[in-house]
């Protein structure tokens, strides 16, 4: 990648405004006055949270914004031609032939009813690059091989749901590049992937760029962008706030929002500090971070939750046996935050279910506050139920859709009646930073962050000794995630409740946890101090995890 040779840009856009009519027919802009160019061999990234307009902007390049959108631009050149005058068939030639689109979640972005081979070959077929079943199949396997899919012959005959997440995502990339496009538009291509898989997918994209393709990367993750993009734009509410070479944007953010975004990323270095409310105008500085309120040290003599040698097997439909947990033991002490880290399939969620008594282990036992917990009748456990509470990853599905917020929080306040219960609900709402008028809302009327706050309020209503948090913020935008994490930290300090904090996010666990347990394939591979363990991993798996972690790698925030 050299700045010296500057070929004609693939895309040259200025003053792009995209708007949709609202219910009353009034146009409402979702992107305003956006300008950028993408040259061959260049990676341009658009960073932003939900609703920032980043995806819409990307899709405008393919004219795939939506039925009644209005797209206006001062300049809209695609491969040198004025795209404002394009008719439908010209647009079809752009799609797949000039620009390929890679989206998030290959499971739904590949047609689940068609084989991988057919999906990959489709663009080539449409653009006449190959004819006949045999030629298309050859092309599909070759393209799969190019993105590093092993055994492409076999894979081409399979369906998306038969492939692992990483292979699936690579197949999606293969489908996007099969028409030999000069531009790749990657919209959140690695979201929801494990760190190690994410690294592989990014390297495939990087390779395409290095071969001369233009790459437009859409992401919410600054660390991902930092590792690949030549230039970056930060968008919020349809407006570009910051743009320029990636290093410049991340190292010296001009706009406060950019700085807030950067500061909201949890890491080892943010441990003990707030992720929100960072520095004011002066400049982003670690010292300007606000410390979290002081908390009592964990009482190592008072275990709240003790798990001994948990084992759990599942029978697979194929007749095999899948080992979810294989001799896992851990202890959570009073006031302690224990992080439980692992990639998907490592057994984290099974641990949570067994701890909560929703699932019986095949072997091993759990004690809650010294009392037998596993293997007991539900009636016998009932008096201890209040002591262990739960914050799920997806609170929406854990709320009865017909219940109001009052009903949901009141679920844990059934000892109270009438007015006092209502008052308690109001108190709890205030505690999690929500206005009283949310009390009558239903789950469907709440945003993701608000739902998570309600889940926290519900857990706290029981006055528990321990809360099991299962990926509590993984579905949230970075800025919202920061607010929820800070809230949890505040409340933990305030109540001294112990937390079993389950996450796949290494940065987050280093920020939040006291101790950490690393799970792989149902076994504990390593445990110890939440920060030290990643600085000096003693197990090779931990080292791999650390290596795969994309990092912002600039002076502003250091992760090691």
């Amino acid at each position, binding site marked *: 990648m050299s700045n010296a040779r500057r070929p004609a840009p693939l895309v040259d856009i200025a003053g792009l405004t995209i708007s949709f009519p609202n219910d009353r027919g009034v146009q409402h802009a979702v992107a305003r006055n956006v300008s950028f160019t993408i040259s061959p061999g260049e990676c341009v990234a658009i960073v932003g949270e939900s609703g920032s307009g980043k995806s819409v902007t990307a899709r405008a390049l393919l004219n795939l914004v939506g039925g009644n959108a209005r797209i206006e631009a001062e300049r809209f050149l695609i491969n040198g031609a004025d795209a404002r005058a394009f008719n439908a068939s010209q*647009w079809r030639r752009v799609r797949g032939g000039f620009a390929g689109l890679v989206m998030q979640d290959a499971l739904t972005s590949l047609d689940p009813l068609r084989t991988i081979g057919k999906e990959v070959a489709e663009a080539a077929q449409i653009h006449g690059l190959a004819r006949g079943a045999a030629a298309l199949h050859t092309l599909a396997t070759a393209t799969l091989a190019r993105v590093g899919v092993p055994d492409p012959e076999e894979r081409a005959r399979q369906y998306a749901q038969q492939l692992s997440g990483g292979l699936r995502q690579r197949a999606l990339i293969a489908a996007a590049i099969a028409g030999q496009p000069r531009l790749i538009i990657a919209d959140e291509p690695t979201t929801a992937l494990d760190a190690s898989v994410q690294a592989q997918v990014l390297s495939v994209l990087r390779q395409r760029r290095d071969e001369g393709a233009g790459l437009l990367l859409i992401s919410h993750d600054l660390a991902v962008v930092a590792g690949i993009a030549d230039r970056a734009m930060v968008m919020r509410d349809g407006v570009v706030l910051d743009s320029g070479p990636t290093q410049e944007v991340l190292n010296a953010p001009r706009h406060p929002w950019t700085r807030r975004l950067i500061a909201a990323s949890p890491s080892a270095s943010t441990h003990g500090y707030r992720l929100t409310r960072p520095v004011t105008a002066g400049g982003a500085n670690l010292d300007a971070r606000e410390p979290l309120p002081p908390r009592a040290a964990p009482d190592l003599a008072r275990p709240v939750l003790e798990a001994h040698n948990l084992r759990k097997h599942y029978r697979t439909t194929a007749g095999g046996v899948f080992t979810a947990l294989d001799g896992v033991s851990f202890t959570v002490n009073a006031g302690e935050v224990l992080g439980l880290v692992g990639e998907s399939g490592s057994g984290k969620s099974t641990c949570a279910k067994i701890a909560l008594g929703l699932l019986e282990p095949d072997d091993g036992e759990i004690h809650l506050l010294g009392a037998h917990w596993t293997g007991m009748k539900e009636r016998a456990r009932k008096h201890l139920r209040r002591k262990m509470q739960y914050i799920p990853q997806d609170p929406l599905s854990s709320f009865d859709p017909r219940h109001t917020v009052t009903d949901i929080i009141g679920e844990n306040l059934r000892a109270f009646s009438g007015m006092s219960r209502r008052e308690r609900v109001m108190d709890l709402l205030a505690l999690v930073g929500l206005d009283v008028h949310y009390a009558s809302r239903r789950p469907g009327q709440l945003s993701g962050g608000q739902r998570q706050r309600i889940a926290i309020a519900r857990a706290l209503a029981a006055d528990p000794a321990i809360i099991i948090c299962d990926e509590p913020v993984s579905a949230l935008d970075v800025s919202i995630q920061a607010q929820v994490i800070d809230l949890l930290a505040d409340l933990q300090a305030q109540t001294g409740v112990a937390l079993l904090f389950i996450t796949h996010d290494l940065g987050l666990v280093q920020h939040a946890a006291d101790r950490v347990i690393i799970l792989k394939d149902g076994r504990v591979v390593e445990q110890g101090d939440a920060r030290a363990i990643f600085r000096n991993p003693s197990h090779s798996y931990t080292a791999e995890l650390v290596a795969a972690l994309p990092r912002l790698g600039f002076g502003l925030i250091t992760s090691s």
Partner: protein
Amino acid sequence: MTEMSSRLSGPASHTVTARSVWPKPINTLINALINFLTRPRRLAPLLACAWMILIAGFAFAPHWFTAYDPLEGDVLASLAAPDAEHFLGTDKLGRDVFARIVYGARFSLGVGLGAVAISVAFGVLLGLIAGQRQRVLDEGFSRLFDVVSAYPGVLLAMLLITFLGGSLVNVAIAVGIAGIPKFGRVVRAQTKAVQDADYVVQASIYGRSRFSAFLVHVVPNVLTVVPVVATISVGTAILTTSGLSFLGLGPQPPTPEWGLMLAESRDYLRTAWWTGVLPGIAITLTVIAFAVLGGSLQRHIEGRAP
């Protein structure tokens, strides 16, 4: 992301324009008008409601709408074309067609609602039981639904009516029984789905016993699917009744039930169209109205509980 997704999708038929053709206020006005008139979600439920209110009025206070007796007519003035005196004409026995339509609302709605009440009562009960995690019960009731629905609906109703005898009540019972599997299956599937929902599985965390969770969470959330199916089924039941009347197995004369009126009028299709067209329109509109209301009810419920 979720807010955007609905807008981002859809056909790519739009064009990139530099500016709009119309001045802004007019454009807005035209958009708003087209919006209202062509959006079936707004106009259709409104019209459906209006029709249902009219029909309900017919059913509850028929004498407000017509001075004629639906059963009495001047046989000597039979099959009179619409005129000032009988503005929808008279039927084969000289009865006022409009009066029969007005009074018929009570019977047609009665058959429809009665049949659906039977289907709902048994379908919900059996569906809730079948939806439990008891394999034996599930298999048993599911096969029972299979047995009942192995007969095409009309055939089953035919058999039941020969068994029960043709009368308004028996038609409602027969059509109701034929509709049980529909509700049973829907409720069973919904019960299974709700029971696997996190808020039911995790209810024990909040100290709820399984039975308590069943009452508080499962039953109400299962029942949300019932009104939609029930609303649409009322229309279907009225239709089935008219089919049975055609086969001579429906309510007995001189009941001014719409399906029976329609079935009886078919012999005069070429000579006295007014005896059949209007009951036919009444049935069709009512069935459409129920379907439209069911649809908007569904959107309402889905919108509230995504």
